[in-house]
């Protein structure tokens, strides 16, 4: 119930158009209910009086009510379309904002696909429910109540026959609807399974072929496909039977009403006319129609409830990293970094750091090298508070980073991450990403510093070359160089390169580092790499292993004193 109310909150700005829409809907439904009544009057009064003028009058009234009903139901629909679309727009914006505030730990807890589905199809499903489900629900309830009332007005005695039939039919209906719902869930799960297998197979196409696993893949896919076939067929068949069954109930009710009514017509004392009998049987059919519609409402509702649950689940997350209460705003900083007594672990995992200490001076250029899993990247993710430490503190210019406002903290630090995700758009737009107001000249300088200028100029359109979705159309090395240029351009006081030169050849790698060295900007720089080539020119090299710094010094010092560093050096140098 809570997810339902929570998502319905998004409708509150549109309360007015929604209410107007439903009032109009009630009006048009009432007008529709009038039609059989007017037909009855035309027959009972007009024909009985033998007056063509009267009949024409009733006919005109029927025509007029049709025109009115059309106008009213048109405006009702338009209002509802507007309200539902605006609601889904708001909902998507809010979900987007929520994800923007995620910490990296929050991202670790979700699959990208799950987030996308929520913003994308779940919101659409909820919108569909508002637009169609609520609409049908209200309309069918009005029609149901209206036609039952009309029947009682025409003749209470036959109407009481309906009072017996209706509850039975309703009970039957809800029973079957509730027994179908869990099968709907199964259909969804089965289809998910099929699509996941397909997606994995396509993404891993090379691997499947390398290991000649096509027969197994086909078998795996077919198992899921067949399971989906069986469950989906079951649902289709059930629905295929239920719909005509509801129609049958409606039709049989008409027969019963007609027979009972016919008997009453025979005895004038009952006050039953032929016209009212026909109107009555018309209302009987009309009363059964909403039941079929209610079936649709139920399927909309059950889908919408599942989506609401998923959307709500995302909305109620409080990002693990939040703005401090009384934040310090940094408009600039010297770039002096201290880690003191820091302990950190991912979730419930093994500790990555325990009582870790490190300080980096303003304007220093530090290289970090070490084995896989030594904690090099993790260390750098702690600085802009992508993750928070469990113990100890990190300071920037002697201010605890937890006291600095998140936005000003992050705008002082730029990290080029290992994942070199680019966006669709031109190359220039991608480089400008972190500094939207950068001039063309600055972009070119950054690209030149990242050794990217040459290959960019070889592309059609140069800097205006358009990249596809997620920056498709570049090789791994080219992507890395663009992402380095992006970081260099945006970097304010602290620049961190997190192993972004892995796909570059040695000379390019060195040129980039030399450019950084030569740059006169006062900036603290931290370069993480697995290659000595990338870090040997830094002021200080830290050798990390399993969450600790085992040695630090210049290249020349370490090559003499640090055994691990020597080993790394030897494996990377054929000359030794």
């Amino acid at each position: 119930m809570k997810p339902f109310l929570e998502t319905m909150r998004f409708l509150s700005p549109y309360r007015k158009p929604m209410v107007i829409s439903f009032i109009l809907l009630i009006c048009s439904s009432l007008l529709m209910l009038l039609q059989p009544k007017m037909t009855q009057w035309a027959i009972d009064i007009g024909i009985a009086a033998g007056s063509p003028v009267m009949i024409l009058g009733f006919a005109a009234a029927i025509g007029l009510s049709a025109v009115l009903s059309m106008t009213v139901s048109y405006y009702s629909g338009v209002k509802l379309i507007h309200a539902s679309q605006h609601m889904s727009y708001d909902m998507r914006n809010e979900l987007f904002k929520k994800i923007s505030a995620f910490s990296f730990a929050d991202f670790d807890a979700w699959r990208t696909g799950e987030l996308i589905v929520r913003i994308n199809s779940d919101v659409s499903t909820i919108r569909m429910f508002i637009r169609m489900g609520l609409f049908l629900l209200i309309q069918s309830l009005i029609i149901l109540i209206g036609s039952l009332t009309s029947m009682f007005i025409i003749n209470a005695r036959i109407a009481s026959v309906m009072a017996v039939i209706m509850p039975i039919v309703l009970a039957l209906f809800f029973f079957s609807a509730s027994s179908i719902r869990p099968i709907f869930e199964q259909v969804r799960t089965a289809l998910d399974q099929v699509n996941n297998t397909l997606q994995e197979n396509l993404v891993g196409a090379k691997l499947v072929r390398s290991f000649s696993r096509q027969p197994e893949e086909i078998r795996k896919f077919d198992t899921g496909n067949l399971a989906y076939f069986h469950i989906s067929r079951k649902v289709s068949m059930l629905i295929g039977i239920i719909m005509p069954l509801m129609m049958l109930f409606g039709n049989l009710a008409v027969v019963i009403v007609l027979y009972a009514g016919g008997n009453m017509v025979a005895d004038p004392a009952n006050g039953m006319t032929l016209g009212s009998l026909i109107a009555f049987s018309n209302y009987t059919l009309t009363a059964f129609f909403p039941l079929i519609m209610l079936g649709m409402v139920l399927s909309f509702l059950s889908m919408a409830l599942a989506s609401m649950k998923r959307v709500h689940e995302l909305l109620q997350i409080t990002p693990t990293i939040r703005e401090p209460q009384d934040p310090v705003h940094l408009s600039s900083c010297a770039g002096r970094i201290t880690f003191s007594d820091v302990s950190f672990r991912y979730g419930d995992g093994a500790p990555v750091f325990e009582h870790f200490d490190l300080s980096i001076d303003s304007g220093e250029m530090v290289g970090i090298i070490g084995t896989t899993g030594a904690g090099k990247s993790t260390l750098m993710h702690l600085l802009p508070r992508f993750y928070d430490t469990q113990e100890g503190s990190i300071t920037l210019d002697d201010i605890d980073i937890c006291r600095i406002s998140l936005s000003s903290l992050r705008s002082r630090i730029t990290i080029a991450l290992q994942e070199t995700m680019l966006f669709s758009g031109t190359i220039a737009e991608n480089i400008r990403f972190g500094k939207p107001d950068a001039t063309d000249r600055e972009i070119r300088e950054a690209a030149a510093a990242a050794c990217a200028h040459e290959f960019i100029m070889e592309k059609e359109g140069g800097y205006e070359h358009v990249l596809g979705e997620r920056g498709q159309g570049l090789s791994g090395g080219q992507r890395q160089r663009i992402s380095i240029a992006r970081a260099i351009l945006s970097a304010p006081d602290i620049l961190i390169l997190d192993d972004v030169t892995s796909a570059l050849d040695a000379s390019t790698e060195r040129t980039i580092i030399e450019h950084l060295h030569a740059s006169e900007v006062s900036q603290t720089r931290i370069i993480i790499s697995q290659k000595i080539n990338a870090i040997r020119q830094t002021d200080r090299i830290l050798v990390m292993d399993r969450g600790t710094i085992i040695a630090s010094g210049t290249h020349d010092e370490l090559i003499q004193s640090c055994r691990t560093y020597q080993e790394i050096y030897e494996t990377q140098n054929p000359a030794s």
Partner: protein
Amino acid sequence: MAETAAHESKTTQKIRPGNRGHHHMNFEKPKDSKASRTRLLRYMKELTPILLGSMVFLVTAVLLQVAAPTVLGNAITDHLERSLDLSAFLRQMIILSGIYLSMFASRAVSSVMIAHASNRLIYKMRRDGFEKLQRLSLSYYDRAGVGDIISRMTNDIETVYNAFSNGFSSVLSGTLSIIGTLAAMFILNIPLSFAVLSVVPFALLFVVLLGRRVKVRALENQKQVGGLNTAIEESVEGMKIIQTFHQEQKQYEGFSEVNARARDAAIDFFVESYKMMPMMELMNGISLALVVAIGGTLVIISPELYSIGLISAFILYARQFFEPIRQLSNIYNMLQSALAGAERFFQIIDTDDMISEPEHPVTAEEARGDVAFEQVDFSYVTGTPVLEQITFSASSGSVTAIVGPTGAGKTTIINLLNRFYDVDAGRITVDGRDIRDYRLSDLRAMMGVVLQEPFFFAGSIRENLMYGRLEASEQQMIEAATLANAHHFISCLPEGYDTILTERGMNLSQGERQLLAIARTILADPKILILDEATSNIDSLTEAHIQQAMKHLMTGKTSLVIAHRLSTIKNADQLLVIHDHTIIEQGTHQELMAQQGFYSRLYSIQFEQAQVTEDMSI
């Protein structure tokens, strides 16, 4: 009333449960609708009996439905209005109940049959599509893009299903009931029939005019929805980068702009297509008014020809007549998009970009693993050669290192050897036989590849390691992992070998993923080893351990290695220097250094520093 639901659900097929991501509304018109129609019909051949059966039941149901109002009208006129015979009336009512019951039975049977057929159809489409995809060359994947293929295999098939499961019976019963109702009306009374029909030309005109406007807006809406989907996917996937550069606000503004455009296009489209429903209600109401006006007047003028029973029958007919017209106009769009979907699906089936199996495959029992390229040319896109005149041979047990600048075509050589793609000219042989003469599975069983970006399936580490050798024992698996230096970190994981790998391998570092990929290949025990920059992401210490393991593993196997690190390459039996699409130098490290050519320049750039240290250590 009910049609509005059908209408919207057709335009937003995404709401079918489980259909995640990659959905684009398919309003595009099929390019050749007739061809895809016949194609689809032929595809359904095995379903013909069941479809015919369902048609028979459906026709029965419609005929009964058409007959019912007549029976009802006659019963009222004959036994209540003109004379009063309640027992005859009861008999008629029993007959009517019988008609309704049979109507239900035929409809239910027909629905069940269609439910079977339509689900069977998409089952078959999925199966055939998937099987075809397994046989396609990777160049098809490059061209079409994985996202597009997924969309064809899910949404497009879904549109076919929607149209078939709802459309088949609707079109058939709609057409039949229009014809049947028409016939029944004309038999019953001609003037009143014309009264009902008089609004039809207006209705048709409206449908045609509105249809055109709806289509334009539908296309615009589809475009905006596509844009919104891209924006969502890209922003969510790139959110870490966005945060890193502190661009959340700007990205949010951009997103809500796209979001607003999608909203406005959707409002335009839905409002336009919504006009259909109230308009049809109006037509229905007007025809009702006409029946009452004309019929009522006629009852007064000539009561011997016109009765109240007759008018009540016509009131029912008017409703029965407009209902299917409304449905058909909605279904038209659905059918159009289904045909477009079918066309896109058949494009997969029709692609002949296949790696074909030889007709008479040679048996590869005791493979030695001698590899040779003979004057091989290749291009991914015609006109842009990637490899030209590549000739070299690598004998069993030797190590061949491929070096050269990024983009020179090193990876392509390996793609060709694996037959991910076929050569344009020349040939590649293994043990002297053209690789196209081997059964694909035999060929690939000879080769083990460690790709640049290792890929794993969702599942446990164990399942992934065994991927290339299902029958491997626990002990063999652990041995392989140990050789690849992976056993240690796997054992440190809380779940060990049963650790489930998540989507992007969040729980493993890139280096660890590399180690796993190597272990997987070691376990598969191939004759020919292909390493595509496999070591570039692993730190030097780990790499050193792997190289030991590899040395042991490479014994007696042909190895082709792509690596930037010359330490691996120095020990190679031969080097191939690829530059500008071809092999410009070939030989051992010493020979190439002596040549003082491209390679020696490459080497000196890379190892300038090494020289310095050597000097130092002297």
